[in-house]
């Protein structure tokens, strides 16, 4: 099995912030959405595992008082995948939960995203996924907003 450390160091990666954003958005997608996104680019979903897709733990850190010293709040399950395409691009995914199929698809998407010719189609697919999610968040925000308290003060006293 090839070593995981074959990934180029971050400074040589183009558009690090854009890649982080794409990985985050892929993390919000369902397996079906990821499959559909890959299919749109005509990208093969064949990839070699750099490391078997596996579920493990991360320790979730909080901060005392919300903004102070770090403390260990408890763990969370995380599933990670690391793949390499026939062209040599490596892709990764780290997702909360235990869905290995989804994590592996997201890692394949991350690898394809690094191919400039595949990127626009994948970005368009991720836009659609993000749009679906944003609508759900917007609706939840509207329901929350309806429970906002509007205080009013009753006048009392002599003046």
């Amino acid at each position, binding site marked *: 099995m090839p070593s*995981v*450390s074959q*990934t180029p*160091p*971050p400074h040589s990666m183009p558009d*690090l912030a854009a890649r*982080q954003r794409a*990985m*985050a958005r892929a*993390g*919000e997608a369902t397996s079906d959405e990821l499959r559909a996104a890959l299919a749109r680019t005509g990208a093969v979903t064949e990839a070699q595992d750099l490391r078997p897709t*596996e*579920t*493990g*733990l*991360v*320790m*979730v*850190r*909080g*901060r*005392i*008082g*919300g*903004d*102070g*010293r*770090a*403390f*260990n*709040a*408890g*763990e*969370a*399950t*995380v599933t*990670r995948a*690391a793949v390499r395409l026939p062209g040599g691009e490596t892709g*990764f995914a*780290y*997702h*909360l*939960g*235990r869905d290995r199929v989804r994590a592996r698809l997201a890692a394949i998407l991350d690898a394809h995203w690094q191919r400039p010719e595949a990127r626009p189609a994948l970005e368009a697919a991720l836009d659609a996924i993000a749009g679906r999610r944003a609508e759900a*968040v917007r*609706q*939840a*925000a*509207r*329901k*929350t*907003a*309806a*429970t*906002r*308290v509007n*205080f009013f003060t009753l006048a009392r006293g002599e003046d």
Partner: protein
Amino acid sequence: MYVAVKGGEAAIDNAHRLLAEVRRGDPAVPELTVAQIREQMRLLVDRVMTEGSLYDPDLAALALKQARGDVVEAVFLVRAYRTTLPRFGATEPLDTGGMTLARRISATFKDLPGGQVLGPTFDYTHRLVDFALEDGADPAPAAEAKPEADAAACPRVTDLLGQAGLLEPSPPDEGAPVGDLTREPVDYPADRALRLQGLARGDEGFILALGYSTQRGYGRTHPFVGEIRVGAVELEFTPEELGFPVSLGTVDLTECQMINQFHGSGAVPPQFTRGYGLVFGQGERKAMAMALVDRSLRAAELGEAVVVPAQDQEFVLAHCDSLQATGFVEHMKLPHYVDFQAELELVRRLRAEHAALAAEPVQDDPTLREAAE
């Protein structure tokens, strides 16, 4: 101690088969799905995640199904599962200031930037049993309103008050290693970070009772709820092979900022002190109780006498874990035949000696008396 006892294998197998059947209940009633538990018993799922110290709603729901709804048993299953997994590392410290709020209230400040939003709460309900739920009718859709402009950024209340110097600041992050009680046994005195880890996974009933005791006078700290916020926070993790942080997704959390009686010294003018609570999911009762006990456990640091249970670190941390507590209490069920046989022999001998002494009341043999004591 307990000793190995042979026999009973068939009885144990059959007891577990019976357990599986009883767990299922009346076969004429449809079986619960894990998704139903996750969606409709959400606060129970949140409690199992918090006390199991593992964020995974589906796993907690499954554990509850397997445990027939027994919280401590479900916590046991979740904790056992986590021991089978490798740990990839620790997340970047999460930012509750960036929470997507589902609820946010303050009992100390009426007018907050971002406002007070009640969200889904039992508060102000009449606590009358709703028999309409028996029929399973769909609820009326929730009301909607346009979020106000200031709802986009809701600073923590403590950050607002802290700016005026009225509130003690949070202990600064100086990059010190973060203690982990799942990796090393706790040494006392334990630092506040370690105490918060213990309180976060502690039994809700135990922490609640201790918090309550501080309000009733056993370690009075005169608390106010500065803020409770419930909502989703993004987690970031930096994998070694990537060297840059990636988003893992979001977790639902409840945070409680308790504001407590003033404290001052020659060097520091009087200011409010603080207690902090943070739990998985929606768990206000637990987060509030945790914040009360966090503050009372700071007694020594703040120059208060340590006289009551809620101020005693070792008493609190060594007894707050429901799994440890149940392990030691429930192991008493297991065969103790040899231990008890030894005790029985001793009592019989002492009784015989006692009877012999009673027959000869004049004699007073100090060696026999010692043995009886």
